[in-house]
């Protein structure tokens, strides 16, 4: 006999129970997300009862005025918050694994700063910023498409530089992190340089753009983000065993037949794409990508089989909850969600760190 056979074991009941608890957490998260989704659509300047929201979404005509509010304003905004939250969070999980660094997030590689620089170039050099007279929306970008495209282009330039350097120097975590830090400060310096020579209006428009806001996206932008985030999440889920192997160490992963360099490079490219698209459409939304994976780690551990779906749900929950609160907290004014994500995420995050892992 030349092959080991150890199949005389039992299926351990205690382990199955342990797995069931993780699945219950994930199912609980999905239910929470759904409840939050209905609530988020129901609250606002016009209050709509949650049951009527549900019925309207299921295609019943309850009230024509509500139809317009739900389908044109609140539904796309709530869905955008979920999709962006899922995207940033799943990119964060992947980055933390790829960079072998708990501080890994979609922004570690300087991609968001590159996007902000792109927006500054568009507003200040191409002159796409302006002032409007409405109170709720005092400053706006008069050519959002050009601004978005410029921001996206600079996000991808940052990504391309990191990929190129990774190719030359090997796709090691250190090379990627250090290049990201360098690019981050380079683009920040570039933005400051442009802002120094900008007019008041332009300066306000640039700052306004960088406040991430999920109400900016319409159905078309939402569709594009959903396809990208959906496909990427599936990719990461398919590779969950490979990421577990990488978390167990480079050499262990290679010994298990995992092509570590390829998984790193693909994972980084995909995370960067997600970040670039979200930043270009919505502006900079910090903290979600960094914090959501860690919140989930504290609850269900580091196993990517549960961590990836858990983080997707947590990302959706956190960004949707933040956006809902942002719409209500200083009504009739609406805060950009980016202000709220850190406000809501930081205390919870600190609590979880202090409490340690769930036993």
């Amino acid at each position, binding site marked *: 006999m*030349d092959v080991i056979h150890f199949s005389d*074991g039992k299926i351990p009941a205690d382990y199955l129970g*342990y797995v069931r608890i993780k699945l219950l957490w994930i199912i609980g998260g999905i239910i929470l997300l759904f409840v939050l989704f209905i609530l988020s659509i129901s609250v606002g300047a016009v209050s709509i009862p949650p049951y009527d929201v549900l019925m309207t979404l299921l295609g019943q005509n309850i009230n024509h005025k509500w139809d317009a509010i739900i389908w044109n304003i609140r539904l796309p905004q709530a869905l955008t918050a979920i999709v962006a939250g899922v995207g940033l969070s799943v990119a964060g999980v992947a980055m933390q694994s790829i960079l072998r660094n708990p501080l890994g997030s979609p922004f570690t590689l300087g991609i968001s700063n590159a996007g902000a620089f792109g927006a500054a170039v568009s507003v200040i050099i191409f002159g796409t910023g302006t002032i409007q007279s409405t109170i709720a929306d005092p400053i706006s970008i008069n050519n959002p498409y050009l601004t978005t495209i410029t921001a996206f282009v600079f996000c991808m330039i940052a990504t391309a530089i990191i990929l190129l350097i990774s190719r030359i120097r090997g796709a090691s975590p250190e090379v990627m992190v250090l290049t990201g830090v360098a690019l981050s400060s380079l683009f920040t310096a570039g933005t400051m340089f442009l802002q120094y020579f900008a007019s008041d209006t332009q300066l306000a428009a640039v700052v306004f753009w960088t406040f991430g806001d999920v109400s900016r996206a319409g159905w078309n932008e939402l569709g594009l983000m959903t396809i990208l985030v959906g496909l990427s999440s599936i990719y990461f889920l398919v590779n969950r065993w490979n990421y577990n192997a990488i978390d*167990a160490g480079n050499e262990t992963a*290679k*010994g298990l*037949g995992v092509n570590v360099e390829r998984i790193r490079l693909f994972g980084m490219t995909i995370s960067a794409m997600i970040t670039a698209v979200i930043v270009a459409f919505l502006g900079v939304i910090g903290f979600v990508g960094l914090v959501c994976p860690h919140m989930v780690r504290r609850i269900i551990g*580091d196993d990517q089989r549960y961590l990836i779906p858990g983080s997707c749900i947590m990302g959706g929950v956190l960004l949707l909850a933040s956006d809902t609160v942002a719409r209500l907290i200083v009504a009739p004014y609406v805060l950009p969600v980016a202000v709220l994500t850190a406000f809501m995420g930081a205390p919870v995050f600190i609590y979880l760190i202090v409490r340690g*892992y769930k036993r």
Partner: protein
Amino acid sequence: MILNVQELNFLYRNHDVLQNVAFEVNHGEIVAILGPNGVGKTTMLKCLNRILKANKGHIYLDGSEIKTLDTLEIARRAGYVPQRVETGRFTAFDAVLLGRRPHITWDVSERDLRIVDAIFSRLSMEHLRLSYIDEMSGGELQKIAIARALVQEPRILLLDEPTSSLDLKNQVEILSTIVDIVREHGIAAIMTMHDLNQAFRYADRFIFLKDGNIHFHGNFNDVTPEIIEDVYGLPVMMGSVGGVRCIVPGTAPA
């Protein structure tokens, strides 16, 4: 024969690390790779399952040249235990289950769970199944790493200094377990080692590396103090204590 290495050459930055290394390993055999720090023991071990790609030479793993095998197939034939084991928030059961990666297509099967369960019993670690590995001692972690390699159902185990960070009791326990499993299942093991006494006690054959070449290759009866002095640059005495073969650094007192 499980492993056949022919004319293995490995270059690092145009510097020869390994030159014309050749040897064979048979079923049920344990081979120790010995030599000073930096001589290329780990490099050689990593070439054997293509974690590092040799510049020249042929390596046949269970009859197939490894260049022609995909990485998962190599992992189904060779289980690798690196020197350093990393931890994370995983249960011991999940950490070992990861060793089934080369066999898993989409999700774990009942068979995967049974194999992992059996390994825990075999290594007398049932009580650790649901413990978190980031709270484990060095000895327990090392056992987890070995268990992970074993559930790959390999034909050969490649162990990089399996006992370097362990206390005496754990060293003996882990090495005797490896010997037992190798004999029981007719697989083979190659270990890089620093402790010559442990090597002499548990391995069947010894390969001493010096300057990127095999300086000596044979069994215990052929090893002489001169060979060890040549390799390590230090005089040694060889003898036996209670029937156990041992070596001691230094020359005999006048």
